[in-house]
């Protein structure tokens, strides 16, 4: 056992620090650790190990907070806030038609007005007003959902994900950003493509709802595909094609965003997806029980915990993965640059 072994053990403990810190201090820290070791010491003491682990984690936490305050997250929050508001607005419009036609519910109109105001406020550059409007609308929707949960918990739970999307949109719009930043990052034509795409998909949903009323009253044969119904197979195919075009347009708008913004938007969407998946995968039995019992059965503490923990874990994990991915890309770029430099200094002869 030699000093080199002790040093390599210290070095292994330094992996608790982020690369950005190790790059600057690793060599110095190793020198201090080795100089401070007792004669004949073979491995780090428990105190040294604990100090390095705790300090490393603290530096990592600090680096994560600094990263969250960076421009890429601010841009992603601005764009996500706008796109989520557009999606929620379109969804609320469809809901108007689902509620037996327009004019049926003042509250439904208020929800449309709320998200419409949010979208307009973002577009004209009133970010703070947009955030305030979003929080107000989300709060109102949460109250409505809580009331609905009291009488019909199953349908309320299935509406948790749009509420979560609303909360995330409101939170994203609260993040400080330059005026009209979302439109600038997204670019006008891609914003229009996204609005067109989402609008087209939702328009098909509205037409489908209106069509269903006729189909159900008239009876006869009809074709179905994941909730879309029509008496004509050709029309149904046309609808599916329209949905695909809409999804493609909306997807392309997001995919053309700069990679750091795009990945962060994916992270912001992750908790919503995780929530919807958790409801779908873990609560069908509970929904069945509600259906058969004839009276509401409410979620128990473990189920609530799952609905909170899983989306938060998805958000945290996503943020860490984005950080790792970018760190890896930075290291790879440095490696390539060093390799090029080496070739320039000593060109290969073969």
């Amino acid at each position, binding site marked *: 056992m030699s000093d080199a072994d002790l040093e390599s053990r210290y070095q292994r403990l330094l992996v608790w620090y982020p690369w950005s810190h190790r790059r600057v201090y690793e*060599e110095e820290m190793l020198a*201090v650790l080795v100089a401070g070791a007792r004669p004949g010491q073979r491995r780090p003491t428990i105190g040294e190990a604990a100090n390095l682990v*705790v300090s490393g984690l603290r*530096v990592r936490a600090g680096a994560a907070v600094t990263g969250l305050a960076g421009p890429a997250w601010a841009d992603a929050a601005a764009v996500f806030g706008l796109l989520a508001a557009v999606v929620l607005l379109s969804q609320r419009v469809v809901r108007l038609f689902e509620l037996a036609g327009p004019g049926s519910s003042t509250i439904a109109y208020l929800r449309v007005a709320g998200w419409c105001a949010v979208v307009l406020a973002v577009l004209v550059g009133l970010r703070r007003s947009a955030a305030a409007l979003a929080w107000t609308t989300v709060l109102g929707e949460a109250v409505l959902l809580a009331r609905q949960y009291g009488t019909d918990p199953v349908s309320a739970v299935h509406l948790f994900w749009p509420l979560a999307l609303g909360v995330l949109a409101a939170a994203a719009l609260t993040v400080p950003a330059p005026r009209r930043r979302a439109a600038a990052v997204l670019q006008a034509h891609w914003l229009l493509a996204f609005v067109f795409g989402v609008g087209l998909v939702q328009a098909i949903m509205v037409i489908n709802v209106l069509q269903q009323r006729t189909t159900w009253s008239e009876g006869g044969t009809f074709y179905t595909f994941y909730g879309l119904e029509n008496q004509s197979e050709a029309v149904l195919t046309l609808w599916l094609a329209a949905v695909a075009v809409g999804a493609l347009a909306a997807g392309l708008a997001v995919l053309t965003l700069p990679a750091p913004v795009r990945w962060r938007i994916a992270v912001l969407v992750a908790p919503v997806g995780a929530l919807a998946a958790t409801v779908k995968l873990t609560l069908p039995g509970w929904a069945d029980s509600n259906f058969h019992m004839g009276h509401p059965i409410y979620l128990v503490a473990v189920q609530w915990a799952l609905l909170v923990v899983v989306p938060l874990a998805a958000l945290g994990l996503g943020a860490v993965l984005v950080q790792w991915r970018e760190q890896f890309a930075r290291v790879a770029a440095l490696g390539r640059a060093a390799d090029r430099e080496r070739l320039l200094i000593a060109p290969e002869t073969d």
Partner: protein
Amino acid sequence: MSHSPLTEPTFLILTALAAEPQHGYGVVEDVLRISDGRVRLRAGTLYGVLDRLRADGLIEVDREEVVQSRLRRYYRLTGLGAERLAEETARLRRNASEAATRLRRSGFMPQGGVA
């Protein structure tokens, strides 16, 4: 502008660098001396504080040397760091003086102060 109080390791590190530029292990040994053997800085704590002090502009790198194929980086106090240390010293002195005055008044400490 009033700052939040410095932690003891931060105060002692700035004090160590107030005399002359020092490298990491030099700071560890000096802090041990300044604190009468009470504070032995560990590497994790030391470099956490040095990094923060550099980011805040209170210290800077004086020079780098390679000794026995190891990098040795010397740090020195900046003008801002000296100002901050002086401010903290005055604050601690005021607090200590006030505590001593009250202890003397209550009869817990002899008039001449502590030995």
